[in-house]
């Protein structure tokens, strides 16, 4: 487990309060807008900033405990830190940068090999180069390799893609997925980009203005109505872990099954039986009292209203139950009144659009 619970006040009025315990495996995303306190949290985990009070424990090892006066120095925590701006040492070549942390690790603890990392990140051709001759994407890959070779027990990544343009991001993301799936190393991943979080994360800690909004398994957190201020009305929605049931090549469609029903989506590039993550935004779910006839929407799901929450402004958040799954919908308050929506009412959910957010490979624990 990674247990983080602390309070910190900065001169200038910013205060941060958080408390979460997440599994020490897979990717935990710290998500929120800039200024939410995401980076401060991983800085505290690394020991770069010191909380006013609290406790930080990774895999049973206490990094920080204000009550017991424990504050392990940065270099003794053995956490890999990938900075947004790479921070490669300009006076060392790529190989020297990669070896910097490796040399300082204990020989008995070296389980991540140099060649494996170079191979994983595709940085073999760069070894003799100077950092200032590398592109932004290359620099970030080297920085990731350098952090891995320091043999960390936890990898911290601070918006590693934020300084890169779209094409470079697309270049790095597959490396991050491979890293997640092969290294068996827990990762705390700071990001304000929803697409990265949905693609990489297993667990989510959502933050807003120095406060923790929610923490838990990604799909669970994403559909919570209190995520609205974090995500914005545009992006609030439900994540569904699905399995590919069949492909319909004639129409170019695939059928996905989730615990609650089936969805028809544009064909996904994954074999039957493969896992994918589908995302339904609340504003793309419409509600009908009777099974709609003569509509173009093909995803019609029988549902039961669980909760109706009127929001400020014209909208209301509706929680629907579809089989075992909770599905978030958003309609106007006027519609709530006109349809008489109330908890317990059976309705039909019309899902206008589904985004399939990419692969969801089984977690591999194959350490190197």
């Amino acid at each position, binding site marked *: 487990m990674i247990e983080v619970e602390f309070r910190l006040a900065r001169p200038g009025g910013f205060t941060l309060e958080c408390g979460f315990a997440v599994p020490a495996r897979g990717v935990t995303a710290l998500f929120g807008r800039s200024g939410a306190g995401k980076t401060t949290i991983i800085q505290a985990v*690394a020991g*770069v900033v010191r909380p006013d009070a609290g406790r930080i424990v990774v895999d049973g090892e206490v990094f920080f405990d204000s009550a017991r006066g424990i504050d392990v*120095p*940065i*270099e003794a925590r*053995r*956490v*890999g*830190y990938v*900075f947004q*701006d790479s*921070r490669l*040492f*300009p*006076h060392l070549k790529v190989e020297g940068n990669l070896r*910097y*942390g490796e040399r*300082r*690790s204990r020989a008995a603890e070296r389980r991540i090999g140099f060649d494996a990392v170079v191979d994983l990140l595709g940085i073999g051709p760069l070894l003799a180069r*100077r*950092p*200032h001759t590398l592109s932004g994407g290359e620099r970030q890959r080297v920085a990731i390799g*350098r*952090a891995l070779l*320091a043999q960390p027990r936890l990898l911290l990544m601070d918006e590693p893609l934020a300084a890169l343009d779209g094409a470079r991001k697309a270049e790095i993301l597959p490396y991050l997925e491979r890293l997640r799936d092969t290294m068996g190393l827990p990762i705390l991943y700071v990001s304000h980009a929803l697409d990265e979080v949905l693609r990489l994360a297993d667990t989510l800690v959502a933050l807003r203005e120095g406060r923790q909004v929610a923490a838990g398994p990604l799909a669970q957190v994403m559909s919570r109505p209190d995520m609205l201020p974090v995500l914005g009305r545009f992006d609030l929605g439900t994540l569904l872990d699905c399995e590919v049931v069949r492909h319909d090549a004639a129409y170019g469609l695939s059928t996905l099954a989730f615990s609650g029903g089936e969805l028809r989506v544009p064909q996904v590039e994954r074999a039957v039986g493969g896992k994918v993550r589908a995302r339904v935004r609340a504003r793309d779910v419409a509600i009908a009292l009777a099974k709609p006839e003569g509509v173009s929407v093909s995803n019609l799901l029988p549902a039961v209203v669980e909760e109706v929450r009127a929001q400020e402004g014209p909208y209301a958040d509706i929680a629907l139950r579809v089989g075992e799954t909770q599905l978030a919908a958003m309609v106007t308050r006027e519609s709530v009144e006109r349809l008489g929506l109330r908890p317990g009412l059976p309705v039909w959910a019309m899902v206008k659009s589904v985004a399939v957010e990419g692969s969801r490979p089984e977690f591999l624990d194959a350490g190197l």
Partner: protein
Amino acid sequence: MLTPEEWTAVALSLRVAFWATFWSLPVAVLTAFVLARSRFAGKSLLDGLVYLPLVLPKVVVGYLLLLTLGGRGLIGQYLDAWFGIKLIFTTAGATVAAAVVSFPLTVNAIRLALEAVDRGLETAARTLGASRLDVFFSVTLPLMLPGILSGALLAIASALGEFGATITFVSNVEGQTRTIPLAIYSATHMPDGDAMALRLTLVSVVLALGSLLLASLCDRRIRVMIGRA
């Protein structure tokens, strides 16, 4: 070309300048580090003390050295009694005078270089398992090298040109304390010393130009080496 007496002065100057820089450089790096990185009560006082030789008349610096390190000085008497170190009228004394006078320039150059070092790189090094001391030697110091080099060259140049403090503190003894500037001074007081003064002046110009050229050459090399070209 040069008379034996002039050679003696040139060799002595080089020796004094080299040793003054050699001994003051590590102290200057340490002082710059303390001044740039730490906060403590009395820091402004230390700051002032370090820069004092720069603003005081050099003769005053020399006289203060005489009062403290001279044969009957506050510290000087013990240096002699306990360690047998005599500074008055000796090359060692000339070296001390040169080191003290050049110290503020050296510290300043190194401090500027240190402040230009990206502290984010030091943090990165610590997350990679390096202790503070390790970070200093493996990251900070290499990145400061251009500043240390320019500090060292400033120190050598100012040591080569040191006059006031030296003549006040350790006098003008041939072969012991008579460096090039003191030799030129002596020559101008001799009836037929014009030629000697002129030759030593030329030597000074050549030494100054040579060290400037060497400095820019080294600077370029180091900047390429640390990726700051």
